[in-house]
Protein backbone atom coordinates (compact mmCIF):
# COMPACT_ATOMS: atom_id res chain seq x y z
CA UNK A 1 0.00 0.00 0.00
CA UNK A 2 1.62 3.19 -1.06
CA UNK A 3 1.41 6.29 -3.17
CA UNK A 4 3.67 6.96 -6.14
CA UNK A 5 4.84 10.46 -6.96
CA UNK A 6 6.67 11.35 -10.14
CA UNK A 7 8.16 14.82 -10.14
CA UNK A 8 9.48 16.45 -13.33
CA UNK A 9 10.84 13.16 -14.63
CA UNK A 10 13.17 13.22 -17.65
CA UNK A 11 14.89 10.50 -19.65
CA UNK A 12 17.36 11.33 -22.41
CA UNK A 13 19.19 8.95 -24.68
CA UNK A 14 21.95 11.16 -26.02
CA UNK A 15 20.10 13.73 -28.06
CA UNK A 16 16.71 12.05 -28.09
CA UNK A 17 14.32 12.65 -25.26
CA UNK A 18 12.13 9.69 -24.43
CA UNK A 19 10.44 11.24 -21.41
CA UNK A 20 10.24 15.01 -21.16
CA UNK A 21 9.10 16.17 -17.76
CA UNK A 22 6.35 14.00 -16.30
CA UNK A 23 4.47 14.92 -13.14
CA UNK A 24 2.07 12.36 -11.77
CA UNK A 25 0.63 11.48 -8.37
CA UNK A 26 -0.85 8.04 -7.93
CA UNK A 27 -3.10 7.70 -4.92
CA UNK A 28 -2.97 4.69 -2.62
CA UNK A 29 -4.80 1.75 -4.20
CA UNK A 30 -5.37 3.50 -7.50
CA UNK A 31 -4.95 1.85 -10.90
CA UNK A 32 -3.41 4.27 -13.35
CA UNK A 33 -3.18 3.30 -17.01
CA UNK A 34 -0.49 4.87 -19.18
CA UNK A 35 -1.70 4.80 -22.76
CA UNK A 36 -0.27 6.15 -25.99
CA UNK A 37 1.10 5.11 -29.36
CA UNK A 38 4.37 3.16 -29.75
CA UNK A 39 7.39 5.24 -28.83
CA UNK A 40 5.47 7.73 -26.70
CA UNK A 41 7.66 6.98 -23.67
CA UNK A 42 5.09 5.09 -21.61
CA UNK A 43 7.15 1.92 -21.28
CA UNK A 44 10.29 3.93 -20.54
CA UNK A 45 8.40 5.74 -17.80
CA UNK A 46 7.24 2.46 -16.26
CA UNK A 47 10.72 1.00 -16.44
CA UNK A 48 12.09 4.09 -14.72
CA UNK A 49 9.64 3.57 -11.88
CA UNK A 50 10.72 -0.09 -11.74
CA UNK A 51 14.38 0.92 -11.62
CA UNK A 52 15.27 -0.85 -14.86
CA UNK A 53 16.13 2.46 -16.56
CA UNK A 54 18.18 5.20 -15.01
CA UNK A 55 16.62 8.61 -14.47
CA UNK A 56 18.14 11.60 -16.29
CA UNK A 57 16.56 14.08 -13.91
CA UNK A 58 13.58 14.31 -11.60
CA UNK A 59 12.29 12.41 -8.60
CA UNK A 60 10.41 9.14 -8.08
CA UNK A 61 8.80 8.58 -4.71
CA UNK A 62 7.21 5.31 -3.74
CA UNK A 63 5.44 5.40 -0.40
CA UNK A 64 7.00 8.80 0.29
CA UNK A 65 10.56 7.49 -0.13
CA UNK A 66 12.80 8.80 -2.93
CA UNK A 67 13.89 5.68 -4.83
CA UNK A 68 15.74 7.18 -7.80
CA UNK A 69 19.02 5.62 -6.68
CA UNK A 70 17.54 2.36 -5.34
CA UNK A 71 17.91 -1.02 -7.05
CA UNK A 72 14.70 -2.52 -8.48
CA UNK A 73 14.62 -5.05 -5.66
CA UNK A 74 14.80 -2.31 -3.03
CA UNK A 75 11.82 -0.38 -4.39
CA UNK A 76 9.16 -2.71 -3.05
CA UNK A 77 7.51 -3.12 -6.44
CA UNK A 78 6.53 -6.14 -8.50
CA UNK A 79 6.44 -6.15 -12.26
CA UNK A 80 4.45 -8.20 -14.77
CA UNK A 81 6.22 -8.36 -18.12
CA UNK A 82 4.84 -8.52 -21.62
CA UNK A 83 6.42 -11.92 -22.33
CA UNK A 84 5.78 -13.09 -18.76
CA UNK A 85 9.55 -13.58 -18.19
CA UNK A 86 9.01 -16.77 -16.20
CA UNK A 87 12.18 -18.68 -15.35
CA UNK A 88 11.88 -21.57 -17.82
CA UNK A 89 13.86 -24.10 -15.79
CA UNK A 90 11.92 -23.61 -12.57
CA UNK A 91 8.53 -25.02 -11.70
CA UNK A 92 5.62 -22.66 -11.15
CA UNK A 93 6.23 -22.93 -7.43
CA UNK A 94 9.91 -22.16 -7.96
CA UNK A 95 8.98 -19.09 -9.99
CA UNK A 96 6.67 -17.81 -7.27
CA UNK A 97 9.16 -18.48 -4.50
CA UNK A 98 12.31 -17.12 -6.10
CA UNK A 99 11.88 -13.47 -5.14
CA UNK A 100 10.85 -14.35 -1.60
CA UNK A 101 13.81 -16.69 -1.13
CA UNK A 102 16.19 -13.98 -2.27
CA UNK A 103 14.76 -11.75 0.43
CA UNK A 104 15.25 -14.39 3.09
CA UNK A 105 11.55 -14.77 3.84
CA UNK A 106 10.98 -17.63 6.32
CA UNK A 107 9.88 -20.96 4.81
CA UNK A 108 6.47 -21.04 6.49
CA UNK A 109 5.70 -17.53 5.29
CA UNK A 110 6.73 -18.41 1.72
CA UNK A 111 4.44 -21.44 1.72
CA UNK A 112 1.55 -19.43 3.10
CA UNK A 113 1.88 -16.72 0.45
CA UNK A 114 2.39 -19.15 -2.44
CA UNK A 115 -0.66 -21.16 -1.46
CA UNK A 116 -2.71 -18.02 -1.05
CA UNK A 117 -1.69 -16.67 -4.47
CA UNK A 118 -2.29 -20.08 -6.07
CA UNK A 119 -5.77 -20.08 -4.63
CA UNK A 120 -6.58 -16.53 -5.75
CA UNK A 121 -5.38 -17.24 -9.29
CA UNK A 122 -6.60 -20.85 -9.41
CA UNK A 123 -3.20 -22.21 -10.38
CA UNK A 124 -2.95 -24.69 -7.49
CA UNK A 125 -2.89 -27.84 -9.70
CA UNK A 126 -0.06 -26.39 -11.82
CA UNK A 127 2.40 -25.57 -9.05
CA UNK A 128 4.74 -28.43 -9.94
CA UNK A 129 4.72 -27.91 -13.70
CA UNK A 130 7.28 -26.04 -15.79
CA UNK A 131 6.22 -22.87 -17.63
CA UNK A 132 6.51 -24.53 -21.05
CA UNK A 133 3.77 -26.99 -20.06
CA UNK A 134 1.33 -24.12 -19.50
CA UNK A 135 -0.90 -22.26 -21.94
CA UNK A 136 -0.52 -18.53 -22.53
CA UNK A 137 -3.31 -17.63 -20.13
CA UNK A 138 -1.89 -19.86 -17.42
CA UNK A 139 1.57 -18.34 -17.82
CA UNK A 140 0.00 -14.93 -17.48
CA UNK A 141 -1.58 -16.04 -14.20
CA UNK A 142 1.75 -17.33 -12.93
CA UNK A 143 3.39 -14.02 -13.85
CA UNK A 144 0.70 -12.26 -11.84
CA UNK A 145 1.16 -14.74 -9.02
CA UNK A 146 4.83 -13.89 -8.89
CA UNK A 147 3.84 -10.27 -8.36
CA UNK A 148 1.16 -11.06 -5.77
CA UNK A 149 3.31 -13.22 -3.48
CA UNK A 150 5.68 -10.32 -3.02
CA UNK A 151 2.90 -8.26 -1.41
CA UNK A 152 4.57 -5.15 -2.84
CA UNK A 153 3.75 -1.47 -2.45
CA UNK A 154 2.93 -1.25 -6.15
CA UNK A 155 2.28 -3.43 -9.18
CA UNK A 156 3.78 -2.43 -12.52
CA UNK A 157 2.21 -3.97 -15.62
CA UNK A 158 4.05 -3.67 -18.93
CA UNK A 159 1.52 -4.53 -21.64
CA UNK A 160 0.75 -7.83 -19.91
CA UNK A 161 -2.08 -8.88 -22.20
CA UNK A 162 -0.63 -8.13 -25.61
CA UNK A 163 0.54 -11.72 -26.18
CA UNK A 164 -2.86 -13.29 -25.56
CA UNK A 165 -5.57 -13.97 -28.11
CA UNK A 166 -8.55 -11.63 -28.22
CA UNK A 167 -10.93 -13.74 -26.14
CA UNK A 168 -8.43 -14.50 -23.42
CA UNK A 169 -7.38 -10.87 -23.34
CA UNK A 170 -10.91 -9.76 -22.42
CA UNK A 171 -11.12 -12.46 -19.77
CA UNK A 172 -7.74 -11.62 -18.21
CA UNK A 173 -8.55 -7.93 -18.32
CA UNK A 174 -11.60 -8.52 -16.16
CA UNK A 175 -9.54 -10.68 -13.82
CA UNK A 176 -6.80 -8.10 -13.44
CA UNK A 177 -9.43 -5.49 -12.59
CA UNK A 178 -11.11 -7.73 -10.00
CA UNK A 179 -7.79 -8.73 -8.53
CA UNK A 180 -6.62 -5.16 -8.23
CA UNK A 181 -9.90 -4.13 -6.58
CA UNK A 182 -9.57 -7.01 -4.15
CA UNK A 183 -5.94 -6.45 -3.21
CA UNK A 184 -6.19 -2.64 -3.35
CA UNK A 185 -2.56 -2.42 -4.47
CA UNK A 186 -1.43 0.76 -6.16
CA UNK A 187 -0.83 -0.07 -9.83
CA UNK A 188 0.69 1.41 -12.94
CA UNK A 189 -0.42 -0.27 -16.13
CA UNK A 190 1.04 0.36 -19.59
CA UNK A 191 -0.88 -0.46 -22.74
CA UNK A 192 -1.34 0.79 -26.27
CA UNK A 193 -4.82 -0.72 -26.45
CA UNK A 194 -7.27 2.08 -25.69
CA UNK A 195 -10.13 -0.32 -24.94
CA UNK A 196 -7.98 -1.98 -22.28
CA UNK A 197 -7.08 1.46 -20.98
CA UNK A 198 -10.68 2.68 -20.80
CA UNK A 199 -12.01 -0.41 -19.02
CA UNK A 200 -9.21 -0.89 -16.49
CA UNK A 201 -8.25 2.57 -15.40
CA UNK A 202 -9.26 4.54 -12.36
CA UNK A 203 -7.44 7.33 -14.13
CA UNK A 204 -5.89 7.46 -17.58
CA UNK A 205 -2.63 9.10 -18.50
CA UNK A 206 -2.55 9.73 -22.23
CA UNK A 207 1.02 10.21 -23.43
CA UNK A 208 2.52 11.37 -26.69
CA UNK A 209 6.09 12.20 -27.60
CA UNK A 210 7.35 11.86 -24.03
CA UNK A 211 4.80 14.29 -22.64
CA UNK A 212 1.51 13.89 -20.82
CA UNK A 213 -1.38 15.01 -23.01
CA UNK A 214 -4.11 14.53 -20.44
CA UNK A 215 -4.72 12.91 -17.07
CA UNK A 216 -8.26 12.05 -16.03
CA UNK A 217 -10.86 9.37 -15.50
CA UNK A 218 -11.76 7.40 -18.63
CA UNK A 219 -15.09 9.23 -18.95
CA UNK A 220 -13.45 12.66 -18.53
CA UNK A 221 -10.89 11.84 -21.17
CA UNK A 222 -13.54 10.52 -23.53
CA UNK A 223 -16.06 13.29 -22.94
CA UNK A 224 -13.67 16.24 -22.82
CA UNK A 225 -10.42 15.42 -24.60
CA UNK A 226 -7.95 18.15 -23.68
CA UNK A 227 -5.97 18.10 -26.91
CA UNK A 228 -6.38 17.18 -30.56
CA UNK A 229 -4.09 14.21 -29.99
CA UNK A 230 -6.25 12.79 -27.22
CA UNK A 231 -9.36 13.41 -29.30
CA UNK A 232 -7.98 11.39 -32.18
CA UNK A 233 -6.38 8.68 -30.03
CA UNK A 234 -9.19 7.77 -27.62
CA UNK A 235 -12.39 6.34 -29.10
CA UNK A 236 -13.04 3.81 -31.82
CA UNK A 237 -13.69 4.71 -34.54
CA UNK A 238 -11.71 7.89 -33.82
CA UNK A 239 -13.29 11.30 -33.40
CA UNK A 240 -13.92 13.19 -36.66
CA UNK A 241 -11.84 16.35 -36.81
CA UNK A 242 -12.94 19.09 -39.18
CA UNK A 243 -11.85 22.68 -39.80
CA UNK A 244 -14.52 25.11 -38.68
CA UNK A 245 -15.01 26.19 -42.30
CA UNK A 246 -16.43 22.76 -43.11
CA UNK A 247 -19.45 23.54 -40.92
CA UNK A 248 -20.56 26.40 -43.15
CA UNK A 249 -22.46 28.98 -41.11
CA UNK A 250 -21.09 28.86 -37.53
CA UNK A 251 -22.99 31.76 -36.04
CA UNK A 252 -25.48 29.75 -34.01
CA UNK A 253 -22.80 27.43 -32.65
CA UNK A 254 -21.26 29.69 -29.99
CA UNK A 255 -17.72 28.47 -30.64
CA UNK A 256 -15.14 29.98 -28.24
CA UNK A 257 -12.64 32.48 -29.58
CA UNK A 258 -9.60 30.96 -31.25
CA UNK A 259 -11.43 27.83 -32.39
CA UNK A 260 -10.44 26.67 -35.85
CA UNK A 261 -11.01 22.92 -35.51
CA UNK A 262 -13.95 20.98 -34.20
CA UNK A 263 -14.23 17.34 -33.22
CA UNK A 264 -17.39 15.25 -33.37
CA UNK A 265 -17.68 11.67 -32.08
CA UNK A 266 -18.90 9.27 -34.80
CA UNK A 267 -21.96 8.42 -32.73
CA UNK A 268 -22.88 12.08 -32.29
CA UNK A 269 -23.56 12.61 -35.99
CA UNK A 270 -27.06 11.71 -37.11
CA UNK A 271 -28.79 10.93 -40.37
CA UNK A 272 -32.21 12.20 -39.24
CA UNK A 273 -32.96 15.88 -38.47
CA UNK A 274 -32.62 17.17 -34.91
CA UNK A 275 -33.85 20.51 -33.56
CA UNK A 276 -31.12 23.14 -33.65
CA UNK A 277 -28.71 20.84 -35.49
CA UNK A 278 -26.42 21.95 -38.29
CA UNK A 279 -27.10 20.10 -41.53
CA UNK A 280 -24.21 19.09 -43.76
CA UNK A 281 -24.73 17.51 -47.20
CA UNK A 282 -22.53 14.50 -47.98
CA UNK A 283 -22.08 11.43 -50.16
CA UNK A 284 -21.92 7.88 -48.81
CA UNK A 285 -18.63 6.18 -49.72
CA UNK A 286 -18.59 2.92 -47.77
CA UNK A 287 -20.82 1.08 -45.32
CA UNK A 288 -19.15 -1.33 -42.88
CA UNK A 289 -21.63 -3.43 -40.90
CA UNK A 290 -19.94 -4.65 -37.71
CA UNK A 291 -22.84 -6.42 -36.03
CA UNK A 292 -25.02 -4.30 -33.79
CA UNK A 293 -23.96 -1.09 -35.48
CA UNK A 294 -22.46 0.05 -38.75
CA UNK A 295 -19.66 2.42 -39.67
CA UNK A 296 -20.66 4.74 -42.47
CA UNK A 297 -17.82 6.49 -44.31
CA UNK A 298 -18.99 9.76 -45.83
CA UNK A 299 -17.44 12.50 -47.89
CA UNK A 300 -18.84 15.91 -47.00
CA UNK A 301 -19.53 18.26 -49.87
CA UNK A 302 -16.75 20.43 -48.41
CA UNK A 303 -14.34 17.58 -49.30
CA UNK A 304 -13.66 16.19 -45.81
CA UNK A 305 -14.06 12.52 -44.91
CA UNK A 306 -15.96 11.56 -41.78
CA UNK A 307 -17.05 8.32 -40.15
CA UNK A 308 -20.45 7.87 -38.56
CA UNK A 309 -21.38 5.02 -36.33
CA UNK A 310 -25.07 4.35 -36.75
CA UNK A 311 -27.19 1.74 -34.98
CA UNK A 312 -28.38 -1.30 -36.92
CA UNK A 313 -27.81 -1.69 -40.66
CA UNK A 314 -29.15 1.32 -42.53
CA UNK A 315 -30.08 0.70 -46.17
CA UNK A 316 -27.74 3.21 -47.76
CA UNK A 317 -25.99 2.28 -50.98
CA UNK A 318 -22.58 3.67 -51.79
CA UNK A 319 -22.70 6.84 -53.82
CA UNK A 320 -26.05 8.12 -52.59
CA UNK A 321 -26.41 11.63 -51.21
CA UNK A 322 -27.24 11.96 -47.51
CA UNK A 323 -27.49 14.79 -45.00
CA UNK A 324 -25.67 14.69 -41.66
CA UNK A 325 -27.02 16.51 -38.60
CA UNK A 326 -24.76 17.71 -35.81
CA UNK A 327 -25.99 19.25 -32.56
CA UNK A 328 -23.91 22.20 -31.30
CA UNK A 329 -23.47 20.57 -27.88
CA UNK A 330 -21.69 17.62 -29.47
CA UNK A 331 -18.89 19.79 -30.87
CA UNK A 332 -15.45 19.74 -29.25
CA UNK A 333 -13.74 23.05 -30.10
CA UNK A 334 -9.94 23.04 -30.62
CA UNK A 335 -7.25 25.48 -31.64
CA UNK A 336 -5.12 23.63 -34.20
CA UNK A 337 -2.09 25.91 -33.56
CA UNK A 338 -1.76 24.99 -29.89
CA UNK A 339 -3.56 21.67 -30.28
CA UNK A 340 -5.59 22.43 -27.17
CA UNK A 341 -9.25 22.72 -26.34
CA UNK A 342 -10.60 26.25 -26.49
CA UNK A 343 -13.43 25.91 -23.96
CA UNK A 344 -11.32 24.57 -21.13
Amino acid at each position, binding site marked *: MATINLVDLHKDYGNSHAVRGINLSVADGELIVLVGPSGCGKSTLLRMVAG*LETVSSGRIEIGGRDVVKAE*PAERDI*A*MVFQNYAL*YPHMTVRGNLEY*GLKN*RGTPRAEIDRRVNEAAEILEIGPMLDRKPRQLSGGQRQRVAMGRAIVREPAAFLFDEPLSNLDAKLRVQMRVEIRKLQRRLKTTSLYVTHDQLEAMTLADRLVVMNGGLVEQIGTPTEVYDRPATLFVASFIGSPPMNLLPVSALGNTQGLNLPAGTDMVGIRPDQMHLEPRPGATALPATAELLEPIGGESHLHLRLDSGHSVILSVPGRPSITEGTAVTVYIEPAALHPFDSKTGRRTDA
Partner: protein
Amino acid sequence: MVENRPWLTFFTHLVLIIGVVIVVFPVYLAFIASTHSGGDFLRGLVPLLPGPNAVENYSKMLFEGISTAGAPPLWIMLANSTLIAIIIAIGKIIISLLSAYAIVFFKFPFRLLAFWIIFITLMLPVEVRIIPTFAVVANLGLLNSYLGLTLPLIASATATFLFRQFFLTVPDELMEAARVDGAGPMKFFRDILLPLSRTNIAALFVILFIYGWVQYLWPLLVTTDSRYYTVVMGIKRLAATADAEPQWHLVMAAVVLAMLPPS
Protein backbone atom coordinates in the same frame (compact mmCIF):
# COMPACT_ATOMS: atom_id res chain seq x y z
CA MET B 1 10.43 -38.28 -49.16
CA VAL B 2 8.30 -41.41 -49.09
CA GLU B 3 8.90 -43.60 -52.09
CA ASN B 4 8.50 -47.26 -52.67
CA ARG B 5 11.16 -48.35 -55.10
CA PRO B 6 12.81 -51.57 -53.91
CA TRP B 7 15.85 -51.22 -56.14
CA LEU B 8 16.50 -47.73 -54.94
CA THR B 9 16.22 -48.88 -51.33
CA PHE B 10 18.61 -51.73 -52.06
CA PHE B 11 21.07 -49.45 -53.80
CA THR B 12 21.10 -46.75 -51.09
CA HIS B 13 21.65 -49.39 -48.44
CA LEU B 14 24.45 -50.93 -50.47
CA VAL B 15 26.23 -47.57 -50.75
CA LEU B 16 25.87 -46.99 -47.03
CA ILE B 17 27.13 -50.45 -46.15
CA ILE B 18 30.17 -50.08 -48.42
CA GLY B 19 30.90 -46.74 -46.77
CA VAL B 20 30.66 -48.23 -43.30
CA VAL B 21 32.94 -51.13 -44.27
CA ILE B 22 35.56 -48.74 -45.62
CA VAL B 23 35.53 -46.74 -42.41
CA VAL B 24 35.33 -49.63 -39.97
CA PHE B 25 37.77 -52.08 -41.59
CA PRO B 26 41.02 -50.44 -40.44
CA VAL B 27 39.66 -50.21 -36.93
CA TYR B 28 38.68 -53.86 -37.06
CA LEU B 29 42.12 -54.76 -38.34
CA ALA B 30 43.72 -52.86 -35.45
CA PHE B 31 41.60 -54.82 -33.01
CA ILE B 32 42.45 -58.16 -34.70
CA ALA B 33 46.14 -57.31 -34.69
CA SER B 34 46.02 -56.59 -30.97
CA THR B 35 44.82 -60.13 -30.28
CA HIS B 36 47.64 -61.96 -32.06
CA SER B 37 51.23 -62.65 -31.07
CA GLY B 38 54.10 -60.54 -32.34
CA GLY B 39 55.12 -62.44 -35.44
CA ASP B 40 51.70 -63.07 -36.93
CA PHE B 41 51.40 -59.76 -38.66
CA LEU B 42 54.81 -59.77 -40.25
CA ARG B 43 54.28 -63.14 -41.91
CA GLY B 44 52.68 -61.63 -45.02
CA LEU B 45 49.28 -63.24 -44.59
CA VAL B 46 47.18 -60.89 -42.49
CA PRO B 47 44.77 -62.77 -40.20
CA LEU B 48 41.18 -61.57 -40.17
CA LEU B 49 39.90 -63.45 -37.13
CA PRO B 50 40.75 -62.75 -33.48
CA GLY B 51 43.80 -64.59 -32.16
CA PRO B 52 44.51 -66.12 -28.76
CA ASN B 53 46.85 -63.46 -27.29
CA ALA B 54 44.41 -60.69 -26.42
CA VAL B 55 44.66 -60.84 -22.62
CA GLU B 56 48.43 -61.17 -22.72
CA ASN B 57 48.93 -58.21 -25.12
CA TYR B 58 46.57 -55.87 -23.32
CA SER B 59 47.89 -56.61 -19.83
CA LYS B 60 51.46 -56.19 -21.03
CA MET B 61 50.64 -52.81 -22.54
CA LEU B 62 48.56 -51.61 -19.65
CA PHE B 63 50.84 -52.53 -16.80
CA GLU B 64 54.37 -52.95 -18.16
CA GLY B 65 54.74 -50.81 -21.24
CA ILE B 66 57.58 -51.30 -23.73
CA SER B 67 60.74 -50.27 -22.02
CA THR B 68 62.83 -50.50 -25.21
CA ALA B 69 60.66 -47.83 -26.78
CA GLY B 70 60.88 -45.66 -23.67
CA ALA B 71 57.15 -46.05 -23.13
CA PRO B 72 55.72 -46.25 -19.62
CA PRO B 73 52.81 -48.54 -18.80
CA LEU B 74 49.77 -47.49 -20.78
CA TRP B 75 47.55 -46.94 -17.77
CA ILE B 76 49.72 -43.99 -16.72
CA MET B 77 49.34 -42.40 -20.13
CA LEU B 78 45.61 -43.11 -20.16
CA ALA B 79 45.26 -41.52 -16.75
CA ASN B 80 47.30 -38.50 -17.91
CA SER B 81 45.18 -38.10 -21.02
CA THR B 82 41.96 -38.34 -19.04
CA LEU B 83 43.12 -35.83 -16.46
CA ILE B 84 44.37 -33.36 -19.07
CA ALA B 85 41.25 -33.67 -21.20
CA ILE B 86 39.05 -33.08 -18.16
CA ILE B 87 41.08 -30.08 -16.97
CA ILE B 88 41.02 -28.55 -20.45
CA ALA B 89 37.28 -29.13 -20.90
CA ILE B 90 36.29 -27.78 -17.49
CA GLY B 91 38.75 -24.89 -17.64
CA LYS B 92 37.59 -23.85 -21.08
CA ILE B 93 33.93 -24.02 -20.08
CA ILE B 94 34.43 -21.95 -16.91
CA ILE B 95 36.50 -19.27 -18.63
CA SER B 96 34.27 -18.98 -21.66
CA LEU B 97 31.07 -18.92 -19.57
CA LEU B 98 32.43 -16.05 -17.50
CA SER B 99 33.81 -14.08 -20.42
CA ALA B 100 30.63 -14.51 -22.46
CA TYR B 101 28.60 -13.41 -19.42
CA ALA B 102 30.69 -10.27 -19.09
CA ILE B 103 30.49 -9.45 -22.78
CA VAL B 104 26.75 -9.96 -23.11
CA PHE B 105 25.28 -8.73 -19.83
CA PHE B 106 27.58 -5.94 -18.67
CA LYS B 107 28.15 -2.58 -20.21
CA PHE B 108 31.78 -1.53 -19.93
CA PRO B 109 34.05 0.58 -22.11
CA PHE B 110 35.55 -1.25 -25.11
CA ARG B 111 33.14 -4.13 -24.67
CA LEU B 112 32.91 -4.72 -28.40
CA LEU B 113 36.68 -4.45 -28.74
CA ALA B 114 37.11 -7.07 -26.02
CA PHE B 115 34.80 -9.38 -27.89
CA TRP B 116 36.62 -8.94 -31.18
CA ILE B 117 39.99 -9.52 -29.57
CA ILE B 118 38.70 -12.79 -28.16
CA PHE B 119 37.14 -13.61 -31.49
CA ILE B 120 40.34 -12.98 -33.42
CA THR B 121 42.20 -15.57 -31.35
CA LEU B 122 40.09 -18.11 -33.25
CA MET B 123 42.57 -17.54 -36.05
CA LEU B 124 45.51 -18.30 -33.77
CA PRO B 125 45.30 -21.95 -32.69
CA VAL B 126 48.10 -23.51 -30.67
CA GLU B 127 49.97 -24.65 -33.77
CA VAL B 128 50.33 -21.08 -35.05
CA ARG B 129 51.57 -19.56 -31.81
CA ILE B 130 53.46 -22.63 -30.69
CA ILE B 131 56.95 -21.11 -30.41
CA PRO B 132 56.07 -18.05 -28.30
CA THR B 133 53.69 -20.16 -26.23
CA PHE B 134 56.45 -22.69 -25.64
CA ALA B 135 58.84 -19.93 -24.65
CA VAL B 136 56.35 -18.54 -22.12
CA VAL B 137 55.59 -21.95 -20.64
CA ALA B 138 59.28 -22.84 -20.46
CA ASN B 139 60.19 -19.52 -18.79
CA LEU B 140 57.46 -20.05 -16.25
CA GLY B 141 59.04 -23.42 -15.44
CA LEU B 142 55.92 -25.27 -16.43
CA LEU B 143 57.54 -27.91 -18.66
CA ASN B 144 56.70 -31.41 -17.48
CA SER B 145 53.69 -30.39 -15.45
CA TYR B 146 49.94 -30.72 -15.82
CA LEU B 147 49.62 -26.95 -15.67
CA GLY B 148 51.98 -26.55 -18.60
CA LEU B 149 50.11 -29.22 -20.53
CA THR B 150 46.69 -27.64 -20.07
CA LEU B 151 46.97 -23.90 -19.51
CA PRO B 152 47.86 -22.80 -23.06
CA LEU B 153 44.99 -24.89 -24.43
CA ILE B 154 42.35 -23.50 -22.10
CA ALA B 155 41.75 -19.97 -23.41
CA SER B 156 39.04 -20.64 -25.94
CA ALA B 157 37.38 -18.32 -28.39
CA THR B 158 35.12 -21.01 -29.81
CA ALA B 159 33.40 -21.74 -26.54
CA THR B 160 33.18 -18.05 -25.65
CA PHE B 161 31.56 -17.36 -28.98
CA LEU B 162 29.11 -20.24 -28.54
CA PHE B 163 28.02 -19.07 -25.10
CA ARG B 164 27.78 -15.50 -26.30
CA GLN B 165 25.38 -16.53 -29.03
CA PHE B 166 23.32 -18.48 -26.52
CA PHE B 167 23.25 -15.66 -23.98
CA LEU B 168 22.08 -13.26 -26.65
CA THR B 169 18.96 -15.40 -27.09
CA VAL B 170 18.08 -15.11 -23.40
CA PRO B 171 15.37 -12.44 -23.26
CA ASP B 172 16.26 -9.19 -21.46
CA GLU B 173 13.00 -9.47 -19.57
CA LEU B 174 14.33 -12.55 -17.80
CA MET B 175 17.24 -10.58 -16.40
CA GLU B 176 14.93 -7.71 -15.49
CA ALA B 177 12.53 -10.07 -13.74
CA ALA B 178 15.46 -11.44 -11.78
CA ARG B 179 16.56 -7.94 -10.84
CA VAL B 180 13.09 -7.12 -9.57
CA ASP B 181 13.16 -10.43 -7.70
CA GLY B 182 16.29 -9.30 -5.90
CA ALA B 183 18.87 -11.40 -7.73
CA GLY B 184 22.22 -9.65 -8.16
CA PRO B 185 24.59 -10.39 -11.06
CA MET B 186 26.16 -13.47 -9.46
CA LYS B 187 22.84 -14.85 -8.34
CA PHE B 188 21.34 -14.35 -11.77
CA PHE B 189 24.30 -16.18 -13.28
CA ARG B 190 24.08 -19.07 -10.84
CA ASP B 191 20.32 -19.46 -10.47
CA ILE B 192 19.13 -18.68 -13.98
CA LEU B 193 21.84 -18.52 -16.62
CA LEU B 194 23.73 -21.67 -15.57
CA PRO B 195 20.67 -23.93 -15.42
CA LEU B 196 19.56 -22.61 -18.80
CA SER B 197 23.00 -23.35 -20.31
CA ARG B 198 23.03 -26.93 -19.05
CA THR B 199 22.53 -28.60 -22.43
CA ASN B 200 25.08 -26.32 -24.05
CA ILE B 201 27.61 -27.07 -21.33
CA ALA B 202 27.10 -30.82 -21.68
CA ALA B 203 27.51 -30.76 -25.46
CA LEU B 204 30.55 -28.55 -25.21
CA PHE B 205 32.12 -30.76 -22.56
CA VAL B 206 32.01 -33.76 -24.91
CA ILE B 207 33.54 -31.80 -27.77
CA LEU B 208 36.24 -30.24 -25.60
CA PHE B 209 37.08 -33.51 -23.87
CA ILE B 210 37.83 -35.06 -27.25
CA TYR B 211 39.75 -31.94 -28.26
CA GLY B 212 41.91 -32.36 -25.16
CA TRP B 213 42.26 -36.10 -25.63
CA VAL B 214 43.55 -35.93 -29.19
CA GLN B 215 46.15 -33.22 -28.49
CA TYR B 216 49.43 -34.43 -29.98
CA LEU B 217 51.82 -31.65 -30.83
CA TRP B 218 51.64 -29.66 -27.60
CA PRO B 219 52.14 -32.60 -25.17
CA LEU B 220 54.98 -33.82 -27.39
CA LEU B 221 56.71 -30.46 -26.98
CA VAL B 222 56.36 -29.79 -23.29
CA THR B 223 56.90 -33.28 -21.84
CA THR B 224 60.22 -35.06 -21.61
CA ASP B 225 59.40 -36.91 -18.44
CA SER B 226 57.58 -40.17 -19.17
CA ARG B 227 55.36 -39.63 -16.14
CA TYR B 228 53.56 -36.89 -18.07
CA TYR B 229 53.18 -38.64 -21.42
CA THR B 230 49.72 -38.68 -22.90
CA VAL B 231 48.43 -41.68 -24.79
CA VAL B 232 48.16 -40.09 -28.24
CA MET B 233 51.80 -38.99 -28.26
CA GLY B 234 52.80 -42.25 -26.57
CA ILE B 235 51.59 -44.30 -29.50
CA LYS B 236 53.97 -42.50 -31.79
CA ARG B 237 56.85 -43.49 -29.51
CA LEU B 238 55.74 -47.12 -29.48
CA ALA B 239 55.76 -47.34 -33.25
CA ALA B 240 59.16 -45.69 -33.64
CA THR B 241 61.43 -48.23 -31.99
CA ALA B 242 65.08 -48.04 -32.92
CA ASP B 243 66.85 -51.00 -34.52
CA ALA B 244 63.94 -53.39 -34.15
CA GLU B 245 60.71 -54.39 -35.79
CA PRO B 246 57.78 -52.43 -34.42
CA GLN B 247 55.76 -54.62 -32.15
CA TRP B 248 52.55 -54.04 -34.05
CA HIS B 249 50.43 -56.27 -31.89
CA LEU B 250 51.26 -54.15 -28.84
CA VAL B 251 50.96 -50.86 -30.69
CA MET B 252 47.54 -51.87 -31.90
CA ALA B 253 46.48 -52.80 -28.38
CA ALA B 254 47.49 -49.28 -27.31
CA VAL B 255 45.62 -47.77 -30.26
CA VAL B 256 42.45 -49.64 -29.40
CA LEU B 257 42.67 -48.50 -25.79
CA ALA B 258 43.33 -44.91 -26.84
CA MET B 259 40.28 -44.95 -29.08
CA LEU B 260 37.89 -46.14 -26.40
CA PRO B 261 37.26 -43.01 -24.30
CA PRO B 262 36.45 -40.54 -27.10
CA SER B 263 34.14 -43.00 -28.85
